[in-house]
């Protein structure tokens, strides 16, 4: 079962694993891994981490950060670099 193998490979990794790494380990193409991740995501088996709502909407103190920036939730310095997907346990 491809998805079970993929899930096992993700769980086996210590920390981050990329689509390219997974493709190499499962001897398939990155596009195939993308499709498998989409399937797991649609089934609620993978969930994204680091979502914006996990950040605070409040500034550390009035008159400091709040005086010059719109607050952590919409801070222009927060870059959307990557999407991290974690295996969701229930």
């Amino acid at each position, binding site marked *: *079962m*491809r*998805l*079970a193998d993929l*899930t096992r490979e993700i*769980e*086996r990794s*210590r*920390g*981050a*694993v*990329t*689509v*390219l790494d997974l493709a190499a380990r499962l001897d398939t*193409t*990155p*596009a195939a891994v993308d*499709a*498998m991740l*989409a*399937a*797991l*995501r*649609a*089934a*609620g*088996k*993978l*969930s*994204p*981490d*680091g*979502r914006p*709502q*996990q*950040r*605070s909407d*409040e*500034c*550390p*103190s009035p008159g*400091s*950060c709040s*005086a*010059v*920036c719109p607050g*952590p939730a919409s*801070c*222009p*310095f*927060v*870059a959307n*670099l*990557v*999407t*991290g*997907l*974690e295996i*969701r346990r*229930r």
Partner: protein
Amino acid sequence: MSPIIAIAGCPNAGKTTLFNRMTGAKQKVGNWPGQTVDRHEGAFSVHGQTFQAVDLPGTYGLVAVSAEEAIATGFLCQERPAAVVTVIDATNLSAGLHFVAQIAEAGLRQVVALNMSDVAERRGITIDTETLEDAIGVKVIRTVARRGDGVEELQAAIADAVGGGLPAAPLVLDYGPVVERHLGGLVETTVAHPEIHRLGPPRWIMLQLLAGDEQVTRAVEDIPGSAKVLTAAQQARETVAAELGFDIETALAERRLDWVTGLVDRVSGPCHAGPTVSDRLDMVLTHQAWGLPVFLAVMWVTLRVTADVTAPFLDWIDSTISGPVSRWAEALFQAISLDGTWAEGLVVDGIIAGVGGVLAFVPVLFGLYFMLAMLEDSGYMARAASVMDRGMRAVGIPGKAFLPMMVGFGCTVPAIYATRTLDSSRDRLLTGLLTPFMSCGARLPVYVLLAEVFYAGQRSTVVFSMYLLGIAVAALIGLILSRTVLRESEPAPFVMVLPEFRLPNARTVWALTRQRTWTFIKGAGTIILAASIVVWFLLAIPSGGGGGFADTPVEDSAFGGISKVIAPALKPLGFGEWEQSGALLTGFVAKEVVVSTMAQLYAVEDTAEEETSDGFGDDLREIGTSFVGAAADTLRAIPRVVGLNYVDLEDDSSSHLQSTIRSSFDKSSHGHGALAGMAFLVFVLLYTPCMAAVAAFRQEFGARWMWVSVIGQSVVAWTGALLVYQGGLLLGVG
């Protein structure tokens, strides 16, 4: 009552753009019950019939994994709208079809909007919509929401779907013998509970119970006498997992994947996609051996552009503020007969020198933010994060720490908040303790100023060294902490999905650069302004020495008195003069204040040199001429970034501020000014970034760890600067 139409689909498929096109101005915005998420509703009419459209938050499927997704799935499964417009991204058909399949299994009427069809066509992706319609039994409309293409056709299809009146026939997928056997048994148990049928097709309800869908489980729990059904579903869930050797969610996803893959093959041709150009680039850029050298090279170019290419504009703003702007202010005070008063001193030596000293670095920050935005939007920053992740894990720092640390290159405050994305409190704390060592944008003006004073020809090398040193110190501290008080736990596994490489979008790059630079400028107008005023007053207040208010020698001022208390502790580091300790003291407020304080201190001390001009017109001409000169120098500096030196741009002239700083450091280090300057930079890199970062740290980790962080950073900064200065003296450097 008008039929309700839900606009649903995966995030970034273009739902909201399509919703706006469908409803036009007929919209209202409210909140979802008990949520802060906006609920957008609107209306549209087809042949006199009005429909109410609701724009749902993006979701990948009907099993919610977040609060926002729960809003969408709750609305679809419990409200059961008259029809669903499933918006799918034509360039990512596979992801969209998983959602289509689940909506169809739930027995909801749907119309599929194949959005971004123009982009798909440009990429050579062909989709046979007729075959797709036959396979899923619903109307598929090509749309380009951005232009409004296909919207009328889509509205007509919705009207047809709703007008048919008959319930949609649920899609039935074969989930294999094991699941089907248990599923069949579960569906039979619902015969005794007709209320369950009101929630949706019984087969779908049982599938959701098997998949552990919390919302459907709660809805079934509310039905009297349904406990047996729930118990049977739970037992089936466990039995299926035992029989298959893996969980049932994976089994259901596997069968849907088969269905989606088969369908994509039929409607879009077999997918034999090998590695794309982006994949091939990744093989080099994230390679175990090449990844790090490439990352360092990219950082080098970024900082060369930042420090060298923008330098002519730095000089232009600096000379404009210290020259014409200061002269105009003096002329204004003369015109209102307040020249020579403390008010003139506050404005010219306090505000203009302090705030102006920081504003001069706007071009440098613009350069940094421009380069970072280019790297972010091209997708390279994600690769850099991947390279950093590997290195950090090697020294016991959690893999996910790369995100806060990359954010830390811009600003430490959001970087500390970004630690919330980490799983354990140990990982969050460790990363929070390390992010302040990442060199934030506010330290850049200090680096550039001191590098200009002591290492004019090696400006970018000095700045680059500071960035690298910050990473190295973070790695070292991380290694020590993870082997002692914050022992390493098993790192949580996760998939890092990197975005496709692309040419940076000019609009996005400009927006990011503008927002970040503007934040820096606003800081100059608030925090730096306030700090400059406070420092000026402290410099004006006599403390034990001679003179009255605003007429006391600066070393005898209150500021001088406070700074002299700290200065002895910094003597072994080569910068034990009170001006230097005073600048570092105010740097606790914000790092840019180090520069504004230096500008104020040395401007106050500067009484010998007074530039004159022949009038306002001459000043304007001077500003214009020097701007053209700066622009020309910038253009000539660009080839030097990659080592092409067509024109000698070395400028031997240095400002009065620079020569005074040099003299001050030479004096404090007994002639080893360059070495003391380097030690000063190391101290600025490593000590507490700013008060806002301290407050953020306290909010996230509590007062005790805040003190550990502040004291720890001060100790590390002092030790680092000591090693540089005393080590340099021992080795005969500088």
